[in-house]
């Protein structure tokens, strides 16, 4: 039995695939492997969780409701990367980062430092 996180990932993968709008049953059909054995209620639970988190939008026009991804995978990735790399001012300490970007000149100086240390002893 896959974890909730894995289920959410599988569902989003399907929705991101072609940017389509699907009903829960259509989604169930398109889930890979074991996913197809899930109950429709499970899929609906996952979809409502994703909706609450803002990743999925529900179209209430027709019944059964159609679900689609709010943003593309690329948009989410860009948001992630922007948060990791893009903050110029640390207004909110969200992430503890290892990354620190340096100018090309400094990087070169550091590499030289490492190389000389390596060959030194």
């Amino acid at each position, binding site marked *: 039995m896959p974890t909730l996180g894995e289920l959410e990932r599988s569902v989003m993968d399907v929705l991101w695939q072609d940017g389509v709008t699907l009903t829960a049953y259509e989604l169930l059909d398109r889930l890979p492997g074991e996913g197809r054995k899930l109950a429709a209620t499970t899929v609906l639970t996952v979809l409502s969780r994703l909706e609450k*988190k803002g990743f999925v939008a529900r179209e209430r026009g027709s019944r059964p409701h159609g679900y689609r991804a709010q943003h593309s995978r690329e948009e989410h990735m860009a948001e992630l990367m922007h948060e990791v790399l893009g903050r110029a001012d640390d207004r909110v300490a969200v992430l503890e980062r*290892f990354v620190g970007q340096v100018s090309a000149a400094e990087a070169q100086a550091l590499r030289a430092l490492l190389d000389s240390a390596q060959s030194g002893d």
Partner: protein
Amino acid sequence: MIPAAIFLGALALILAVPVPILLARASWPARAPGVALLLWQAVALAGGMSMIGALVVLGLAPFGSDIGAASTGLWRAVSAREAIELSRAWPVIALGAALLLGAHLVLNLALTIVASERERRRHRAIVTLLSAPLEQRRDARVIEASVPAAYCLPPVGGLSVTVLTAGLVALLDERELGAVIAHERAHLHQRHHLVTTAFTAWKLSLPWLPIASRAQAAVAMLVEMLADDRARSVADDRTLARAIVLVASGDTGGAPSREIEAPSGHAPTGITARVTRLADPRLPRGASAAVILLAIGLLAVPTALLAAPLLA
């Protein structure tokens, strides 16, 4: 009471400007980051206490000879609805200022905590969707981005996570990756986000005072060094140094260093400092102990001045 107010005011001034400037410029913190972190916290706390304490003592001065008696005196005057004469306007102003400053600090802290929790939750949700476990390791996840990056998310709803980009995994060898993951896990294990969040809020509150602005930058750097020290238990210094440089220089789009606002010309920027310090010896125990004592003493002074009369 006035002498006490003057003393606290002077202490507040000293801790607000010259002390943090000097401490930020000092070179010993890199040799004992944990102890230096303690000292920064003591400076910030003592500074805050002295600022508010000076205002409180000044405000209470006309009402009694020590804080306890003065507080009772003020309470009596207010409840008897005695008109606060014009000559006593300044105590009201001082007490009001103390209250405002206290509220300002507390509110900023609360808002910063709430905002960072919310962003962390959001980020966590996206990472869950976009990442896969790092192969053969259970302690990190990988996201499909080509820019080399590694970071960790402090716990939100119980679980924390270390995240690497695919670009980083491709760039580093196994030992270097181990060093990076150990570094991130050190952040989580030692709960650095608590202290960095507090100092971010502190800087937000008093952005023009060195006690807050320099402190935030210094603490951010010290916390990196502390995590580096932990990484040294799983990787040798050379591996760690390479990992630090590779991660930082992987994307040399000419973006200026963001890790630390280096005061003009003096201190090296973050990455260089983190690498060169690996070669420096640790601070001798005696010196470390002295710093710890200094930190305790620094905190004890305003505490004693403010609390002792209440306890007597």
